[in-house]
């Protein structure tokens, strides 16, 4: 855990949703993946096996609103950063009674300090050429962290801009000098 605002596993588990499907895309099960960040709370990305993101959530055990910090982190991990808009970030406070008695007792003992959750949900949208765009995430290990990017739902992870840039760099370095 990372100090003030950190969320113990028992509390994070209480927020976990039941398994869901990738609606209006592939219908396959959405998987939750934790991502690391310098922020004290916990991140979860809910995405289907093709990388289409249903929702990304950030939870912190705090009274303050962590939306600005969450937005700044997401903007650093998203290409283009302008895809992270304030209107797509939604705040929810979890007080305890709505999370079951064990969690209610933990939060009550902590002077009723609530958990605050920021959800980032980017709904499918139309690009300038009229084609559909959805938010994808690439979680390949060669990244220092996740890369979020909007793309056509038929493109899949192959169009991750960071992976594509890496491939170009490698191809250039392997080309024999003239």
């Amino acid at each position, binding site marked *: 855990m990372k100090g003030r605002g950190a969320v113990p596993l028992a509390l994070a588990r209480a927020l976990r949703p039941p398994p869901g499907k990738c609606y209006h895309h592939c219908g396959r099960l959405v998987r939750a993946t934790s991502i690391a960040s310098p922020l004290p709370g916990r991140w979860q990305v809910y995405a289907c096996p093709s990388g289409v993101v249903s929702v990304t959530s950030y939870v912190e055990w705090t009274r303050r609103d962590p939306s600005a910090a969450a937005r700044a982190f997401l903007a650093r991990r998203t290409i283009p950063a302008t895809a992270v808009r304030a209107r797509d970030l939604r705040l*929810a406070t979890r007080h305890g009674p709505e999370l079951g008695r064990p969690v209610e007792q933990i939060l009550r003992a902590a002077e009723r300090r609530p958990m605050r959750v920021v959800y980032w949900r980017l709904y499918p949208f139309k690009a300038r050429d009229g084609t559909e765009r959805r938010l994808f995430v690439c979680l390949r290990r060669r990244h220092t962290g996740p890369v979020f990017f909007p793309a056509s739902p038929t493109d899949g992870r192959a169009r991750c801009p960071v992976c594509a840039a890496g491939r170009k760099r490698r191809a250039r370095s392997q080309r024999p000098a003239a």
Partner: protein
Amino acid sequence: MPPRRSTARPQRLTVVLAQWCPHCVPLSTKHARTLARRLAVPLRILDIDRAGDSRTADRMVRAFGDASPDYLIPQVFLEWSDGRVEHLLTGFSEQVARTARAWKDLLGSDWLQGITEGQVR
């Protein structure tokens, strides 16, 4: 130490919702009716798409709830006789099933039991 008794009493339960939202109707309207009955208070529904309600709903969410430019619904508030407004629940952004579980937990909570027994919460 047992919780002390309070003179403040619950006055009104308010739910901010939209008719098209599956987390709101019928799920939250049904559970809110149950909660209001248990608290012995009237239930007020504020529909964000109804001109007369939306301004009050926005004001409540901004002042006491989870405000965002496009805020989550439903949001549930309990008004007390001493003027306090307590934010109780915001819908989960994941599936409707998760919001349903939250309602079930709220209705079975120590918090609700304490209020119905007249303890300070």
